[in-house]
């Protein structure tokens, strides 16, 4: 009954008037915008460099380490479901056709790889520009952006291999191949993480090797990508999209008194409070129970944060940012139970009007936990480090947590109201609100790094700082939910 061109090639697929064909011009335009942004970003990032104590060598090193870590990212993302954000129609009709799956998935994978690479290049440029402005140069920014972009592109290309290894149902999964790839990428990561110039033959060879490994891996496994897994993932994505589009008539309100276990919208394994924990306590404190892999990531991140608190100097801009980011992670973890109760992700949850007491409890709990961590750090450092350093570490951690609480609340926009007032402008407004938390985190980091908690009482702009913190507490404790017009 199969009458189609069985075993068709990539070219056969491209020759069809595929629905995605018209997106090439859109992609090129996006790349053009990314190039413009790449040129402009340093001007804004240098403003941060003026107020955040920093050394450009530290930030450059950070880019190298992040790039090396990105090369082992496919292990995680392969386990989580892979890089393909395809809809059900593609799974049903294109992958259900006699065409070669490589022809269907290959262009989409390449598109994803280029998009992520562009994003990584921009982020690397921004990080580099946060260093000392006097030492900044576009040559160094280009080197860092190139490293990050290639590393991320290679990582995306290798993700399907790990996806097949984790999720495939074939009797012979490609574990040896992906393990060999991991070893190779680790070696490449080690080369990338070492200091080398843009023109270094060894460095360029390492990056070329990473790309070649990724491309070869992708080509060899794309035909074996598990279609049932893609269908399940596409169905989950469609459900999320339809939920986002139907916000104006389908608002989800959380009944905290009758909170029951639910799965998150993106279907990660989630269980709420332990059965032995009183509900009045867990709704403030209980973390979401995730899979072992998430827990491993959290433990690693927490260990890094603890090491920073104990060993590093928060006067260093990179350390200050890392501490604040660790604090935000803790805050997000504390904010996630309610979001999971509502079956939503933490940055999109709606809080009902009467949830203010719970939110206050959450913020208070987050502050207490941050205080305990800070006290532990102080105890560890007592007598061996300047008190100001320890206080600054504690302050960074606590403020990061507070910023996460603010972010959680700002992620609870009254979408119906906003859509009514702003129409199509709702998306930019959501972006602004989504960025408010990280921006607050960054601002507080700068303030703390400049010695707000120093024992000598030196506090630049004390009134402004206190006003920002007070406003953050109010926002963090108030559910930004309105009635439908």
């Amino acid at each position, binding site marked *: *009954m*199969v*009458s*189609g*061109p*069985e075993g068709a090639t990539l070219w056969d697929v491209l*020759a*069809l*008037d*595929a*629905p995605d064909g*018209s997106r090439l011009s859109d992609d090129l335009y996006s790349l053009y915008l990314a190039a413009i942004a790449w040129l402009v970003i340093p001007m804004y990032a240098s403003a941060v460099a003026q107020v955040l104590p920093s050394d450009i060598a530290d930030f450059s090193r950070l880019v190298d380490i992040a790039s090396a870590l990105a090369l082992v990212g496919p292990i995680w993302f392969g386990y989580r479901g892979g890089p393909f954000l395809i*809809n*059900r*129609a*593609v*799974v*049903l*009709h*294109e992958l*259900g*056709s*006699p*065409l070669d799956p490589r022809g269907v998935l290959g262009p989409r994978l390449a598109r994803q790889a280029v998009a992520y690479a562009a994003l990584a290049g921009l982020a690397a440029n921004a990080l580099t520009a946060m260093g000392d402005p006097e030492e900044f140069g576009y040559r160094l920014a280009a080197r860092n952006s190139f490293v990050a972009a290639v590393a991320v592109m290679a990582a995306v290309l290798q993700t399907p291999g790990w996806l097949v290894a984790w999720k495939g*149902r074939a009797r012979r999964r490609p574990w040896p191949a992906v393990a060999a790839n991991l070893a190779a990428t680790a070696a490449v990561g080690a080369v990338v993480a070492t200091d080398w110039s843009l023109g270094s033959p060894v460095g360029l060879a390492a990056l070329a090797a990473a790309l070649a490994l990724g491309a070869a891996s992708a080509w060899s496994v794309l035909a074996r990508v*598990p*279609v*049932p897994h893609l*269908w*399940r993932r596409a169905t989950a994505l*469609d459900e999320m999209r339809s939920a986002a589009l139907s916000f104006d008539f389908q608002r989800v309100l959380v009944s905290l008194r009758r909170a029951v276990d639910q799965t998150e919208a993106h279907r990660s394994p989630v269980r709420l409070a332990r059965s032995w924990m009183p509900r009045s306590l867990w709704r403030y404190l209980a973390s979401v129970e995730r899979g072992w892999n998430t827990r491993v990531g959290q433990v690693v991140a927490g260990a890094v944060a603890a090491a920073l608190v104990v060993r590093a100097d928060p006067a260093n801009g990179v350390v200050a940012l890392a501490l604040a980011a660790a604090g935000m992670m803790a805050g997000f973890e504390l904010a996630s139970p309610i979001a999971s109760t509502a079956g939503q992700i933490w940055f999109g949850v709606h809080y009902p009007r009467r949830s203010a007491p719970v939110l206050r409890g959450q913020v208070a709990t987050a502050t207490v936990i941050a205080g305990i961590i800070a006290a532990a750090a102080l105890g560890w450092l007592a007598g061996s480090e300047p008190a100001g350093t320890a206080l600054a570490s504690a302050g960074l951690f606590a403020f990061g947590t507070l910023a996460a609480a603010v972010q959680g609340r700002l992620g609870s926009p009254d979408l119906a109201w906003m859509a009514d007032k702003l129409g199509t402008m709702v998306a930019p407004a959501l972006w602004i609100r989504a960025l408010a938390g990280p921006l607050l985190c960054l601002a507080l980091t700068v303030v703390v790094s400049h010695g707000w908690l120093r024992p000598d009482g030196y506090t630049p702009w004390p009134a402004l700082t206190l006003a920002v913190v007070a406003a953050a507490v109010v926002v963090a404790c108030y559910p930004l939910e309105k009635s439908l017009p």
Partner: protein
Amino acid sequence: MIEIRGLQHRYGKALALDVPRLSIDASTVLVGHNGAGKSTLLLSLAGLLVPTDGVITIGGDAAGSPGARGRVSFVPDSPALFDDLTLADQMRYVARLHGGRKATPAEAANELVELLDATELLDRLPSAMSKGQRQKASLLVATARPCSVLLADEPTTGLDTESRVALLRGFAHLEQAAGVIIVSSTHDGELIAATPGRLRLSGGRPAAEPDPAAVGPVAPSPAAWSDEDGGSDDSGSDDGGSDDEGADSGGGHPQPAGAAAPPPSRWRSRSRFSQE
């Protein structure tokens, strides 16, 4: 055409499907309560769900294999359409995916457009369609390619009465004109009554005893949906036709092999259900 052996599927620890042995050779409707395993079985047949255990073959090829995918077309419970193509373009595109650059939609699909009164939808994007129209579009796209088995998960959901009648006519046309075996799940009494083979699932297992009381409202004879019989669109559905014929005919219930009563001639059942 469809052979199932030792099929089991679990969601976590919960057993969702347990079909020891089943053969489907004719159009069949899957009935049962919510969570009975109907959609799980359809997804397994479509190769979109890998069962925990067991073997499914379609025309001799394992479900999900390229050979089986070429035979099976699937209409999911919620429409799966390309957002940026009109219905006509989607039908053309799907036909080309299976038949090459010069392929056109299957003749049966073109006739189905007329039967479903969907001509005005051809130039519309999915975003400009209602839920019921999207359901029709999903069916049309699925039939635009050649297939010998059409799987449909609750195809009448969201359709108005006239559209349901048209859909039943369309199913009859597909089976008669194109020889397509239609396996669908539904709670719709009219579709249940109009389909010769019936498999009741309960707790994931085929139920040996049919339950006519749960079948649903009065339904006309399947022959009434046929084009050649010239049956009026409205007389069949609104007047109910023959309740007894739909509910009690042997073709309307799952029967062990060799025990089925003769179904209507035009819808002669070739299904045989057996449990080990």
